[in-house]
């Protein structure tokens, strides 16, 4: 179940951020669903041949972002996205990051409509979750 985490040493991204980023992505793509249990810290560390403290650090970051929660003694689980608190500041921060992408795209000479197409096709990579939602409805 841990095939979706892959470590690249020598990258600009520290390993704890690689682990946290890939788990976030797996949740966004629906590969990990609400209530799924993350592998135990020691198990994932042994599997990836990385320091257990590095895995623990990644889990802490995910916990702080609300994406997962730890139940003492039983493990770390993917939280229900509906339960994740997001305030206006979070939305503003997200909008700002989108602005950065748009500015960069326009500066590269990409037209607005092509940029929008690009956004849609990237979004399609996260399509599974949309389908799940439709089924729920």
């Amino acid at each position, binding site marked *: 179940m841990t095939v979706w985490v892959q*470590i690249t*040493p*020598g*990258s*600009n*991204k*520290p*390993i*704890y951020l690689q682990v946290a980023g890939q788990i976030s992505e797996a949740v966004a793509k629906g590969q990990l669903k609400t209530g799924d249990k993350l592998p135990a810290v*020691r198990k994932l*560390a*042994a599997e990836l*041949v*990385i*320091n*257990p*403290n*590095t895995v623990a*650090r990644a889990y802490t970051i995910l916990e702080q972002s609300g994406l997962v929660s730890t139940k003492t003694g039983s493990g770390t689980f993917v939280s229900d996205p509906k339960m994740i608190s997001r305030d206006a500041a979070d939305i503003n921060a997200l909008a700002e990051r989108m602005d950065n992408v748009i500015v960069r795209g326009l500066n590269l000479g990409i037209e607005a409509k092509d940029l929008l197409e690009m956004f849609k096709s990237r979004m399609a990579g996260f399509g599974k979750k949309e389908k799940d939602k439709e089924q729920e409805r």
Partner: protein
Amino acid sequence: MSELVLETKGLTKYYGRILAVDHLDLKIPKGCICGFLGRNGAGKTTAIKMMLGFLEPTAGSSAIFGCSSQNLTPSVRQRIGYVTEGHRLFGWMSIGRIGKFQKAFFPEQWDDKFFADMIEYFGLPKKQRVKNLSIGQRAQVSLALALAPNPELLIMDDPTQGLDAAIRRQFLEGMIQLIMRQGRTVLFSSHILGDVERVADRIAVIDKGVLRASCSLEQFQKAVKMVRVSFTGEMPAEIEIEGLLHCRRSKKELELVLVGTDEEKIERWANMSKVQNYEIVGMNLEDQFIEYTEPVNHKGFQWE
């Protein structure tokens, strides 16, 4: 900081008039894997030999588990595993024999089954003499010898030097397996920063005998930054920004290497300094290490 396993205070070594280790104040907390980094000749091996009591310091002191390195008692030595640079082992002994030989130094903790299992896992012939082994096989024997006594502190001096990727990985796995046991600590030197990044959660950087950093890997990775800057109009002659380590100029741009300067401070500086544009460039651990240990104002190579 939690309980210290190893501590040096002003540890200094002169070889004649050459200063090899210069007032080293190193603290290694229990439970970490610490990567000991430094360029060739930085003083890593000399420091390690003093920590283990194999070399007398010119000044200063070192202690492991609170016991002076100069007078490590047999009971303290039993808690320490050591892998030498180049995996020097007695060539005339067979693998089985060298296991028994090592066991004599660790009568209480030595795990016969673990040693035998590891030798089998590596596919090594027990009756073979050590001198007939390849460097990789000798390294594997050396790893099994270091882990079989289940040491509380494992010190390895550049253990993966010259080894292939598969055997290097076995060393990393060995370190991870050891650290998973409660209260184990590892100090290892290496030039392969990708390996250090994988297994270390702490690093100590030594340069020309001087300890330049001793912190968590995360802190180091956050602290060393490179910023590329372009200016509106002329480039200023002097750059004043906190934490400036290197400043390189090209016709259009400045390249700054900063240590411990947070992004807010960079932005504030940029706003005050007629900066047209600046970009924080991503660095990996290797880039960070090279920049960090690069002599200040080093001009670099110039090909005519």
